[in-house]
């Protein structure tokens, strides 16, 4: 069975089996990134899927906050899969070369592939 909890208008956390899934939508601005922080506070699993498919717009601040939260999670042994990374997110990730500097975070195309990748880990 899966449970789902909302944080503000743009963030939803769902648990399925051994994976927690975070769905972010609309504008990943300062407010939304604070809601993402609240959601991270309730992550229970060691495998986390983050779906960015519905992020229409993001500030560098919002994405930097997400990065910090993932780095904190990594320290506690959490593995992250980003999926359906929308164009504005991808533009910032690429321009800043973010993926070169972090380990334990993978970018997958679809939710399905991200789930599959996570379930094959550790």
């Amino acid at each position, binding site marked *: 069975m899966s449970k789902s909890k909302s944080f503000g208008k743009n963030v939803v956390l769902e648990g399925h089996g051994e994976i927690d899934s975070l769905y972010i939508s609309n504008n990943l601005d300062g407010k939304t990134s604070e809601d993402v922080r609240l959601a991270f506070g309730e992550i229970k699993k060691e495998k986390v899927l983050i779906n960015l498919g519905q992020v229409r717009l993001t500030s*560098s601040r919002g994405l930097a906050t997400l990065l910090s939260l993932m780095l904190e999670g990594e320290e506690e042994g959490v593995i992250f899969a980003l999926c359906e990374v929308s164009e504005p997110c991808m533009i910032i990730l690429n321009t800043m070369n973010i993926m070169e500097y972090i380990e334990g975070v993978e970018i997958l195309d679809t939710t399905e592939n991200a789930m599959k990748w996570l379930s094959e880990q550790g």
Partner: protein
Amino acid sequence: MEAGTVTTSIPSIEGYEEIVVESIATTARLFGISAKKINNLRVAVNEACINAMEHGNNYDPSKSIVVSYACKDNNMIVTVKDSGSGKVHPDFRRPDVEEQVKKFKTERIGGWGLFLMKSLVDEVDISGSEGKGTTAILKISN
């Protein structure tokens, strides 16, 4: 479509920058700017508006930011003005993200806005005039 200038003013309230971003994206589309250029411009304009609201107007909702945009001969120019102190020394160099990642526990990751703007549009200029606020000018050509 004939050349002309559009001006939008928004209050310095988080969220309103999206209205400007979408309005500029619509304008660029009407003038036949490519989707790739528009996507990059959206991110750059978003950063410029957030800086104007935050560093310029301190998110004072009674202060507006004024954004003008015009397309001509396949070039688009966007100017973003705030009414802050106008004291600005823009540094467009690439932030050391590798270092930021290493020190994430003690220092805030960020300060990417100016570098993103510079990387995502063809020309960027940021200048202040004391007491008259800061103006960011972004240019793209198709």
